């Protein structure tokens, strides 16, 4: 075993330990802010796994989209709805957790059994290297052109839908915003996150 093999093995072990412990912490921790930051760590570790699999472009896309966009979006959502509320205790919550834990453990055992006992017909990992980005581009513009265009339409629809759903009902008049002489006017108005009629 030469040094490249052992380095790759050590990197894989560290990354998978980060993924496993981080995902458990995301699900189990009480404080949701810690969960959100650990989720970013899990996304970074998954990007590291992609680098081990010779996929630098997808690793970069993973970091840009997940860590840069999705995780920041989740943090903003936590800040917007962060209210300390006492959760009502529910009857049978413990048994529900135990039963679902059993179901998920069974699913895990099933998946492990399938992945270990199947005889995969492996040619082995191909080190395609820098060519991967070109290949992805060729795929996107030849045989996966229709899904690519559909993805752009999907992103447009998601953007408009998010704006429409998260819009506040109260409208701020543009005269207030453009009022440069007394800049404090918007701050003094104290526009609430919750609209008046929703609190009633």
């Amino acid at each position, binding site marked *: 075993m030469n040094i490249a093999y052992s380095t790759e093995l050590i990197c894989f072990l560290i990354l998978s330990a980060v993924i496993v412990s981080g995902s458990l912490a995301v699900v189990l921790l009480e404080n949701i802010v810690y969960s959100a930051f650990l989720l970013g760590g899990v996304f970074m570790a998954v990007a590291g796994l992609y680098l081990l699999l010779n996929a630098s472009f997808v690793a970069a896309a993973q970091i840009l*989209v997940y860590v840069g966009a999705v995780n920041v979006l989740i943090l903003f959502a936590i800040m917007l709805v962060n209210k300390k509320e006492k959760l009502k205790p529910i009857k049978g919550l413990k048994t529900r957790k135990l039963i679902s834990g059993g179901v998920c453990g069974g699913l895990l055992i099933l998946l492990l059994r399938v992945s270990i006992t199947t005889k995969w017909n492996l040619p082995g990992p191909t080190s395609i290297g820098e060519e991967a980005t070109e290949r992805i581009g060729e795929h996107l513009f030849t045989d996966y052109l229709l899904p690519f265009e559909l993805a752009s339409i999907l992103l447009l629809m998601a953007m408009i839908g998010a704006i429409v759903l998260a819009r506040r009902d109260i409208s701020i008049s543009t005269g207030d915003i453009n009022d440069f002489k007394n800049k404090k006017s918007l701050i003094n108005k104290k526009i609430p996150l919750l609209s008046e009629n929703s609190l009633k």
Partner: protein
Amino acid sequence: MLENSIGPVPLQAYLIVAAFLFCTGVWGLINSRNAVRVLMSIELMLNAVNINLMSFSSYIDGSIIRGQVFSIFVITVAAAEAAVGLAILLSLYRNRVTIDMESFNLLKW
């Protein structure tokens, strides 16, 4: 099998990590009471699927790498899903003033 693979890490190791990540995501999806944590669990599950696609693409598909293209599409859909999900969460919070999943039972018979 294992001796055929060139690298030191077998394909099964990636599949095991992905299976663990997926099952953690399913457990969190069922048991979380905070609505933001439910969205985080969905992201975990999507990442597990992505790891599977990428490892099969690297180990089996050779230099065609169709799995990488698929995982890019999955990343796109995940971004759209996160945006719409958090917008729904915000409007739910405006209407109900809570993010406890147990209080969203309007459609329960």
